C-alpha cells in the first residue's frame, strides 16, 4: 500500500464497484419487468383458456338442455294436441300444431348453433358440411366446398375452436360483407392444415377492424386462434376477402 500504484488500483476498484452496482440495479429492473411481463402474459393466456373452456361447457349444457328438455316437452305437447285435434276441422286450431312445429325447428337451430352435436362424434369435416348445408338453406348464397380429405386428425377442442372461427367468419361475410358466394377449402401443405375462406363481398382489413371497439367477433376469432396455436392471415384481394387459418399438425 506504500506505493501510488496500489492506491490507484483501489481507486479504480471502488469506482468500478459503484458503476457495476448501478448497472446491476438497472439490469435487475429490466429482468424484473421482463419477468412481470411474462407472468402477466401467462396469466392472460390461462384466463383466456379458462374462459373459452367455460364458454364451451356452458354452450354444451344449454344446447343439451334445449334439446333434451324444452324440445322434448314441446314435442310431447305437439303430440297431445295432435291427438286432441284429430277430428278438428277448424284451420285456426290446426295452425297451433304448425306453430309448435316451427318453434321446435327454431329451438333445434339454436341448439345446433350453440354446440353442433356432430362435432364430437363425426368430427370437424362432417360438422362443417352440415353447417354449410344449413347456411345454404337459410340464406340465398352459393357455397363451394373443397376438402383434401374426409377425415382430419385434430382434437375435439381444436375442432370446436376452428368450427367457431369458421362460423364467425362466414356469418360476418353474409351479414356485413353482403357476400353472395363463399368458397371454403381445407388444404394440407406438408404438416400444416390450411382452412381457406373467401368471398365476393365487401372487402375489409382484418387487422384494422380489430382496433374497432365493437369488433368483438373478430377479437374472439383472434383469441380462439391464439388458444389453438394457429395463425390467421388475410390475403389481399382486389374484390372480396380471403382469410387463411394455418394450423400445424
Amino acid at each position: 500500500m506504500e506505493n501510488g500504484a496500489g492506491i490507484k488500483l483501489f481507486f479504480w476498484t471502488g469506482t468500478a464497484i459503484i458503476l457495476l452496482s448501478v448497472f446491476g440495479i438497472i439490469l435487475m429492473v429490466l429482468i424484473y419487468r421482463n419477468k412481470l411481463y411474462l407472468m402477466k402474459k401467462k396469466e392472460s393466456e390461462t384466463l383466456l383458456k379458462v374462459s373459452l373452456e367455460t364458454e364451451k361447457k356452458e354452450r354444451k349444457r344449454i344446447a343439451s338442455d334445449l334439446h333434451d328438455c324444452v324440445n322434448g316437452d314441446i314435442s310431447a305437447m305437439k303430440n297431445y294436441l295432435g291427438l286432441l285435434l284429430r277430428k278438428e276441422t277448424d284451420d285456426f286450431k290446426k295452425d297451433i300444431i304448425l306453430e309448435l312445429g316451427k318453434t321446435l325447428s327454431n329451438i333445434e337451430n339454436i341448439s345446433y348453433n350453440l354446440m353442433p352435436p356432430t362435432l364430437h362424434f363425426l368430427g370437424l369435416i362432417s360438422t362443417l358440411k352440415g353447417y354449410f348445408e344449413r347456411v345454404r338453406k337459410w340464406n340465398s348464397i352459393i357455397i363451394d366446398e373443397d376438402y383434401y380429405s374426409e377425415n382430419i386428425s385434430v382434437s375435439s377442442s381444436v375442432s370446436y375452436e376452428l368450427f367457431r372461427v369458421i362460423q364467425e367468419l362466414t356469418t360476418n361475410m353474409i351479414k356485413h360483407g353482403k357476400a353472395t358466394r363463399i368458397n371454403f377449402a381445407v388444404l394440407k401443405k406438408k404438416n400444416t392444415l390450411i382452412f381457406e375462406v373467401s368471398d365476393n363481398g365487401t372487402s375489409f382489413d382484418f387487422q384494422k377492424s380489430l382496433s374497432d371497439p365493437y369488433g368483438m367477433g373478430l377479437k374472439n376469432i383472434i383469441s380462439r386462434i391464439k388458444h389453438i396455436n394457429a395463425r390467421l392471415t388475410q390475403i389481399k384481394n382486389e374484390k372480396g376477402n380471403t382469410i387463411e387459418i394455418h394450423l400445424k399438425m
Partner: protein
Amino acid sequence: MPFVWLIFIATLYEIIATFLFKINTAYWFQLYSLLEFLTIYYFFYKLFHFTYNKTLKLFLALLISVYVISLFFLDANNILISEAINRIPITIFSFTFSFIWFKELFNKMEIENPLNYPTFYFVSGLAIYYSGTSILFLISSIIFESDSYFYNFWTVNVLATLFLRIFLIIGVWKMERE
C-alpha cells in the same frame, strides 16, 4: 425521511462548521455515524419489522456494540479509524436488508414498475453508496497516511455520495408524486 433530513443537516453543518468556522469535525463525524445508523435502521425497520423482527434486533445489538467499541478508538486528529470500525456493521446491515428487499420484490412480483416506487430509489441508493465506499473506509486510515493520494482516492466517496443523493432526490420526488 429521517435519513434525508440527516443528510440535509450534515451538509449544512459541513458548510457552516467546517468551511466558515473551521471547527474540528471529528466529534461530529463520530455522532454522524450513530445518527446515520439509526436513520437507516429506522428506514428498514419500517419496511421489515413484521417479518424480520429478530434479525433487526440482532443488528441493533451488533451496531450499538460496534459503536461503543469505536468510541475507544476515537481520536480527534484521526477520525478515520473510528469511521472505518463503524462502517463495517452499517455496510453489512444495508447490504443484507437491500438484498432482502430485492428478494421480496422478485418473490412477490406485486409492483408494476419499480422505477415508480420511492423505496426502490432509497434501497438502490444505499446499496450503491455502501458498495462503493466500503473498501474506501476500510483502508482510509492507510490512504490518509500516504497523504499524496488521499484526495484522488476520496473522489470515489464523492462519486458514491453523488449517486446516493441523486437516488434520494428521485425517491423523495416520487414520494411527493404519490
